[in-house]
């Protein structure tokens, strides 16, 4: 949500907009009551339309992470919640690691409820993310992949940005459930990440249920 009172300049623009808005309604209202009502409805609808449209077309600022290490080093950032242990993800990491000294960092977002987020009550969410991360790292180790890990922001895109600043990465892998079962896909996390970060981003779909079926 755009907050018009975030800076003095924005508040001043908001004031000018308010003057124009009320002046138009007043002038129309003085001429004719129904004209005033019509202008009020039209202007209010226009303001709402502009507000929502302006939010959508606002271009994100791309983050460009710097390469760390030598030419033979590769850093892969994996962002996943509970899907980190899937075979598709393991295959992808192994494929991208071939021929490089690879460091893998797994980020587990501390998913929180909106109410707890706004109350900054994040300890339970971080504790749960910690457990998931620990399980993920152990699972990756069983698959032969050495990885470090950290807990990230509840917003996966923000978690990627944070990790890019601390870990830096040559590639980001986003692991999600299949379409229809993934909240992240529904929210367009992969699309937003590609818009926001100037780094190759791979989307790996991990169907844990199918893998469990195969194990049975």
């Amino acid at each position, binding site marked *: 949500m755009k907050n018009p009172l975030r800076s003095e300049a924005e508040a*001043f623009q908001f004031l000018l907009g308010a003057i124009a808005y009320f002046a138009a309604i007043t002038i129309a209202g003085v001429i004719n009551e129904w004209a005033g009502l019509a202008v009020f409805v039209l202007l209010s609808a226009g303001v709402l339309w502009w507000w929502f449209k302006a939010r959508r077309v606002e271009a994100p600022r791309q983050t460009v992470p710097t390469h760390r290490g030598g030419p033979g080093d590769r850093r892969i950032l994996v962002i996943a919640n509970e899907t980190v242990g899937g075979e598709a993800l393991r295959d992808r990491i192994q494929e991208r690691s071939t021929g490089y000294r690879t460091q893998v960092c797994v980020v587990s977002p501390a998913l929180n409820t909106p109410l707890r987020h706004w109350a900054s009550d994040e300890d339970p969410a971080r504790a749960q993310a910690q457990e998931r991360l620990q399980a993920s790292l152990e699972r990756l180790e069983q698959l032969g992949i050495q990885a470090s890990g950290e807990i990230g922001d509840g917003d996966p895109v923000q978690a990627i940005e944070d990790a890019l600043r601390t870990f830096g990465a040559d590639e980001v892998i986003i692991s999600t459930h299949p379409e229809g079962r993934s909240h992240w896909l529904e929210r367009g996390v992969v699309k937003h990440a590609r818009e926001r970060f100037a780094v190759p981003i791979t989307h790996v779909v991990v169907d844990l249920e199918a893998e469990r079926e195969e194990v049975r």
Partner: protein
Amino acid sequence: MSTHAEAHAAHPPAAHQSSRVDARTLGMFLFIASEVMLFGSFFTAYFFVRVAAGTPWPTPGDELPVFVAGLNTIILVTSSFTMHWGLQSIKRGNRAGLQAGLTLTFLLGLSFLLTQVLEYSRVGFAPYTDAFGTVFYCLTGLHGAHVFVGLTLLAAATTRSFRGHYSPEEHLGVEIPGIYWHFVDVMWIVVYTTVYIL
């Protein structure tokens, strides 16, 4: 295997700053929400008296000083321009501009408040006269109280500007009163339009 997770097995690791709501943003949202509720309750009373109860507005025999209030509106809107000018001046390193802008804003705000008090003494009805009088005094008085708070903030900022505070890089002490002042101005435009004109 070396993991951050192992290092913090007993307690969750320290949060990234971004994982929490920015305190200033949260504070501003809470402030706006509280103001919306405060003014909203008074406007609800206004609409109830005028629309739902069908009370004539203004009550026959009473007359609202629309012209004086209009002049007052111009004074207050002008003060927002001088406020903006003052802040833009310090952003460009123009200290004299900041001082002049803040002083003018303070004087214009004071003029508004004094004119409001003068208007109260001549308006011819009191808060206890009828529902119309109660609503009128409550809405304009509530706004006047906000102007008073704004003037207090402006007085502090103006004094600091003459003491050599603020620079193109550090001017939050002007920015915050500026935001507040524009907000007060917007609220007056709403009050003036609904109570005096429509």
